[in-house]
């Protein structure tokens, strides 16, 4: 490298460009991986792109979107997805928070508990889903044996239209509650002590200080959890696909499963893209209020 005539000045200009240079790779890659699919989806959605009819191509305008949104299956999937997301998220938050509270203050064996907590959401969902399939097995599966042990009648679990969705909610709760626990625990441990001391001076009991002191301070973190879990619940695929495949009938056909069916079973990419776009709009609208909490700089 030759020494420039004004090294300081040159270093300064180089450095002013640093944010641009450092951000360029990630922005380019993400653009390629997201903008292209997005635009391509828009293109497919307004054209006939049915792989079973390769000759029938052409501009169809809003026909694909209308066909998808007016399908009875769409409304059904929207409901199934809604129930799955809301119920799972609510239970995961409540149970996750209670377990985090139990771990909050130092306790014997906490390292062992954390070790067990870190496993469920990291281990391969497909492998776990296969195990759950066997656990739910109505004939000879451990869950029904356990019920019988307590004198309860066996249930059909994933084979029954009424219980299939609750079964999948159970699997998700099992898999992701520890994740919620670990995040909220990190938040609890980092809280300042003074507000709690002040509260107990005023005679507040344990639960009242949890409710009035800890929870308000954890609000930003709770929003982060709701956002991340909400997005992932909305997109859940592995467990549904392995355990029920959307069935029995279409009892567990979420939007994501419907999308898979349209694209890879009916080979109707036009309608699938229209549905994909609808899902994208839905998720962006629903997460908008939470976004600024994650990117806002806390001073």
């Amino acid at each position, binding site marked *: 490298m030759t020494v420039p005539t004004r090294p*300081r000045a040159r*270093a300064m200009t*180089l*450095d002013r460009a*640093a*944010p641009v240079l*450092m*951000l360029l*790779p*990630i*922005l380019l890659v*993400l653009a390629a991986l*997201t903008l292209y*699919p*997005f635009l*391509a*989806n828009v293109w497919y959605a307004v054209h006939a792109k049915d792989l079973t009819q390769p000759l029938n191509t052409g501009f169809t305008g809003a026909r694909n979107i209308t066909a998808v949104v007016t399908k009875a299956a769409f409304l059904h999937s929207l409901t199934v997805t809604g129930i799955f997301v809301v119920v799972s998220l609510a239970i995961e938050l409540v149970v996750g928070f209670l*377990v985090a509270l*139990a771990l909050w*203050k130092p*306790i014997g*064996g906490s390292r062992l*508990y*954390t070790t067990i*907590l*870190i*496993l469920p959401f*990291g*281990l*391969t*969902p*497909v*492998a*776990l889903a*296969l*195990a759950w399939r*066997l*656990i739910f*097995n109505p004939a000879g*599966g451990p869950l029904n*044996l356990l019920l019988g042990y307590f004198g309860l009648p066996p249930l059909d679990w994933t084979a029954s239209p009424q219980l299939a969705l609750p079964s999948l909610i159970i699997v998700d709760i*099992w898999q992701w509650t520890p*994740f919620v626990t*670990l*995040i909220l625990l*990190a*938040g609890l441990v*980092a809280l300042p002590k003074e507000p709690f001391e002040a*509260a107990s001076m005023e005679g507040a009991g*344990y639960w009242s200080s949890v409710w009035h002191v800890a929870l308000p301070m954890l609000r930003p973190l709770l929003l*982060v959890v709701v956002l991340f879990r909400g997005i992932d619940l909305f997109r859940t*695929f592995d467990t549904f*696909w392995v355990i029920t495949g959307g069935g029995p009938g279409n009892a567990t056909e979420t939007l994501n499963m419907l999308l898979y069916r349209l*694209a890879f079973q009916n080979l109707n990419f036009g309608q699938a893209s229209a549905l*994909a776009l609808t*899902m*994208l709009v839905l998720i962006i609208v629903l997460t908008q209020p939470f976004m600024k909490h*994650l*990117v806002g*700089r806390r001073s």
Partner: protein
Amino acid sequence: MRPNRKTELARTLVLIAFCCVWAAPLVYILRVALTSPLEGQAGTPPLFAAIDFQNMQAVFANGEFIRALLNSLVIGTVSTALIIVISVPAAFICATREFKGRESIEAWILSTRMMPAFVVVLPYFILFRSVGLLDTVTGLVIMHVIVSLALAFFMLRSFFGELPRDILEAAYMEGAGAYRTLFSVALPQVRAGLTATAILVFVFSWNELAFAFTLAGGAVKTGPVAILAFMGFQNVQIGPLMAAATVLVLPIAILLIAAQKSLVRGLSFGAIKG
């Protein structure tokens, strides 16, 4: 708020109860995997049946499954390396500098995580088909970069954000540019966080099914795709299936436990000042 014997007992009971529930399915997988194939076939072997390694031997003798694990290893390693190289500078600059448009850039990076896999799969299926990347390791590496790029960025941003300001400012004062500061001052300080991020990114690549199944799965199978081949239509071989599940999750379990401390810290996404 003073801890006493009674609350401590209550907390321990709660924790033990929950950990039993969480450990049960994992114990079930191991129990079935390590029982003789005949005893396992009923679905629920007795808890204290004899340990038997026939199922494990069957899995290791299955060339296709082992090849799939090797594919997963290669794809996971390469995509993790790419993700780290791309996200480290971006996370560093967003965590340590204020510049115009930072918030919108971060919001956009986060929004890429919202794409359902199939939104991405459809166009890439058509693109890959025309350029010959369907069913290749390269194609899956490209797809797996998208899976965790945003996650890596936000985890790393929280680690860089925890660095004390004065050491960074001292480096700048001495005339080190952003890159020098990153490589000689910041990176050595966040080594644990970097390792935790890399491990989590690798884990998500190893676990990924939707892309691996739709954009590959013929000649190039990953572990999760290969294990589905164990599910026959008629009689599922329960023992070998759970043995394969064990082989699939065991390396991940070891990785996660090894990086436990920094993972737990990194998962809070800098939403807390710790």
